[in-house]
């Protein structure tokens, strides 16, 4: 039986709802509307480079990058601890990392909103033990905190899965050849875990750089990220052309990160081939 | 008895630009045990799949009892298959697997249960009805696969290297069991293997294939004793293959000696390949020998010793129950019946 045709409905579906819409975004991104209709123009794309918007773009990348680095610093040790032999019940711990990931994103962010607000629990507790209240809600710090909180598991899991597959005899071999714990880590474990680190970085960086919810809820109205800018163009300003141009930019950023990841993945295969 | 149940006529089959079968012609007699033998990639499995209906030939015809069945789907053929890795349905029990084909035929429940029971008894799996497939050993799974195919009472049973996954001891047992089953049931078996010993043990007819071309068809004894070419001689058992010249009928020259032999009809002074099985080379004293040589190595192989005897620039492989020490000068005798002459191939 020729079973190929049964994927036809899917193909039609994907063309209508994925390919065509993306073409429409591309179309709006390189046109402007005049009295005579749509005209080709680079104006929307050029507008992305205006200082105001470049600043937003820069802030998005910067905050996402800071969050990614913090996730890496916090997450790598977690992954290592979870793969260490001492944990017989590591499946439960792993599960504990997955559960918050599946909780509604908005609720996770909202939870911090209630904790961080002026009369929130954190400040009440701080005052109880005689410390000054902190006012980080509606600042960059709160946005970074929200990103780290939301995306930390995305960093831990890929590193964990690479470390888990690491042949333990490699570590033993390194020790056998005289490497101490730190040298073993620097020379053997970390280089071999790079594919996991890279995919962790992309998995944190991508949602962080595209978010508009975290910045809207925790960053208040003042701290715009590129996501907020896009949302605003479509929902309140109504400039689809500029919004589309910004979306194209966002996709380019994502494409670059995916490209880097896939590069590292093939790199990994290449080094395996060398053995 | 000599009725042809299946005929393959001028079959060509190409996969992704690579020809796997080249103008293949073969007929299979009713009730015979026929083995397709050859190295992997020789086209034997493709042949089986064409008979089973899983592939259609690019060219040529498949005839079943004289009727063309080229494009008849598998479920309409009176042929059943035992797959290489058994392909048992893991979500069904042993009995449900065996009953699968009967259920499709909408057989009444009672008859079906009877048949399944009889068949499981035949393959020594009585009492395994409700076991799950995954709980069975390889040998047991193998027998379920055979029962599942045979219960449909096919006219032809196709077996695609069904013993490949079993360990040596079990494989030997199953070889005998399969052969017995075939004789008792009187069904045509078409068996695919790359194991020449297995083929020699079980078959009525062996079809030796290489690179999509049939090399020789014959009984195990014919194939072993009278290989038609170098490939068959090399593939079936171990052998010494020497260049020789057929001087005249019943006389061949090789290794610097004129040997009397039993072959004729090659013409005079024709270059030929001479095949001598290692167990047919007799070691005698140098004086008695037709040719002389020196024992270079001796390996004990259990029943016999395997010796390499160098004579001139040719090294003979000799199997003998008597051992000669390394370095001994010996003579070699070869009887006329043990010399097999093959036409030289126009080989590359």
């Amino acid at each position, binding site marked *: 039986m020729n*079973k190929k045709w*049964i*994927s*036809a*409905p*899917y*193909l039609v*579906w*994907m063309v209508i*709802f*994925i390919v065509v*819409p*993306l073409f*429409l*975004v591309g179309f709006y991104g390189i046109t402007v509307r005049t009295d005579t209709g749509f005209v080709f123009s680079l104006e929307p794309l050029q507008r992305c480079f205006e200082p105001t918007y470049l600043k937003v773009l820069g802030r998005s990348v910067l905050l996402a990058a800071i969050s990614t680095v913090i996730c890496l610093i*916090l997450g790598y040790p977690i992954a290592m*601890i979870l793969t*260490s032999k001492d944990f017989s019940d590591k499946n439960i*711990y792993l599960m504990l990392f997955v*559960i*918050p990931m*599946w*909780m*509604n994103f*908005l*609720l996770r962010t*909202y*939870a911090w*909103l*209630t*904790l961080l607000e002026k*009369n*929130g*629990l954190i400040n009440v507790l701080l005052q109880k033990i005689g410390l000054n209240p902190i006012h980080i809600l509606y600042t960059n710090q709160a946005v970074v905190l929200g990103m780290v909180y939301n995306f930390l598991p995305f960093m831990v899991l890929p590193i964990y899965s690479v470390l888990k597959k690491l042949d333990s005899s490699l570590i033993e071999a390194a020790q056998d050849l005289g490497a101490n714990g730190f040298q073993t880590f620097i020379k053997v474990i970390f280089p071999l875990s790079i594919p996991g680190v890279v995919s962790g970085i992309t998995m944190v960086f991508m949602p962080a750089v*595209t978010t*508009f919810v975290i910045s809207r809820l925790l960053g208040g109205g003042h701290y715009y990220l590129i*996501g907020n800018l896009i949302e605003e163009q*479509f929902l309140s300003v109504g400039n*689809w052309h500029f*919004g589309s141009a910004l*979306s194209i930019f*966002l*996709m380019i950023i*994502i494409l670059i990160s995916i490209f880097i990841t896939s590069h590292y993945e093939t790199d990994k295969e290449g080094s395996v081939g060398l053995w | 008895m000599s009725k042809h149940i299946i005929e393959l006529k001028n079959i060509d089959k190409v996969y992704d630009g690579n020809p796997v079968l080249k103008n293949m012609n073969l007929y299979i007699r009713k009730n015979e045990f026929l083995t397709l033998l050859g190295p992997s990639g020789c086209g034997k499995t493709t042949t089986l799949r064409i008979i089973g*209906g*899983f592939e259609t030939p690019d060219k040529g015809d498949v005839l079943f009892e004289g009727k063309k069945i080229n494009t008849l789907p*598998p*479920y309409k053929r009176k042929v*059943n*298959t035992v797959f*290489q*890795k058994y*392909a*048992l*349905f893991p979500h069904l029990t042993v009995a449900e697997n065996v009953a699968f084909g009967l259920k*499709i*035929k909408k057989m009444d429940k009672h008859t079906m249960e009877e048949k399944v029971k009889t068949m499981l008894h035949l393959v020594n799996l009585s009492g395994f009805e409700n076991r799950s497939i*995954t709980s069975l050993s390889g040998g047991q799974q193998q027998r379920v696969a055979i029962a599942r*195919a045979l219960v*449909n009472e096919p006219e032809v049973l196709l077996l695609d290297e069904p013993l490949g996954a079993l360990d040596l001891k079990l494989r030997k047992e199953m070889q005998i069991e399969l052969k017995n089953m075939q004789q008792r049931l009187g069904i045509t078996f078409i068996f695919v293997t790359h194991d020449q010993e297995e083929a020699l043990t079980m078959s009525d007819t062996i079809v030796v294939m290489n690179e999509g071309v049939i090399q020789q068809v014959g009984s195990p004894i014919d194939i072993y004793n009278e290989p038609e070419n170098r490939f068959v001689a090399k593939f079936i058992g171990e052998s010494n293959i020497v260049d020789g010249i057929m001087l005249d009928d019943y006389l061949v020259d090789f290794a610097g000696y004129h040997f009397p032999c039993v072959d004729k009809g090659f013409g005079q002074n024709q270059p030929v390949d001479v095949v001598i099985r290692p167990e047919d080379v007799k070691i005698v004293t140098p004086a008695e020998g037709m040719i002389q040589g020196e024992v270079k190595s001796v390996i004990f192989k259990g029943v016999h010793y395997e010796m390499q005897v160098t004579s001139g620039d040719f090294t003979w492989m000799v199997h003998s129950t008597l051992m000669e020490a390394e370095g001994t000068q010996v003579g070699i005798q070869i009887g006329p019946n043990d010399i097999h002459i093959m036409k030289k191939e126009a080989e590359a």
Partner: protein
Amino acid sequence: MVNRIMQRIYLCLIFLFLYAPIVILIVFSFNDSKSRAKWNGFTLRWYKEMIQDPQIRSALYYTLAIAIIAALIATIIGTFAAIGIHNMKRWKRNIIMNLTYLPVLNPDIVTGISLMILFIFISSRFSILSPGFGTMLLAHITFNIPYVILSVLPKLKQLDKNLYEAALDLGATPWYAFFQVILPQIAPGIVTGALLAFTLSLDDFVISFFTTGAGVSNLSILIYSMARRGVNPKINALSTVLFITVLFLLLLINARSSKDRVRKEHA
């Protein structure tokens, strides 16, 4: 030894960081006061108010309706698509798999606005598909299908290629073979895919936000608009219910896949 204790402490701190906000959120949903900092006694008041809130009720209805319908349709389309893709030639399969990964990798916001453009574009010209329930449903089906495909494909790969042939060999027609042999084998993947699709649908905010129309909100959209107006204990109650639901679904999926793993290990 010291090392091990350090490790435990570190993990505990991380889990505290991850779970404290959720736990506090849940605890304060039972607090008999609007305050999020002081405990004023246990109450189910917010749950009662939540249930009675017409906005929340309609959002719940839309969320469930869309999640169920979208999961169902996506599962059917996705399963057939997976079978088709599995049987394709390599280069064709690669192209289609790249297309399949597109909505998975593309930022949600881009998928959301691109669909919004499409829907408004169509509705302004053909007066169909005006933003609302229908468009949100179409969007959900769209982002669900790839996950179904990605759940079913591995099962198809595990499938012994000869099983289908064995069924035909024993006299089964292609459709009989599909329903009696292939389907039971890949069913775990299909169910996992359906549950995944349902959960994703239940959870989605960004794409829903851009593809819905006036008057149609799912719970995520409602939470967003309520949260923007400030903190409200009703959201805590709603969060708790949602969290427990998702947790339950996740455990279900996990139990299925670990059962699967056990079965494989025994094989």
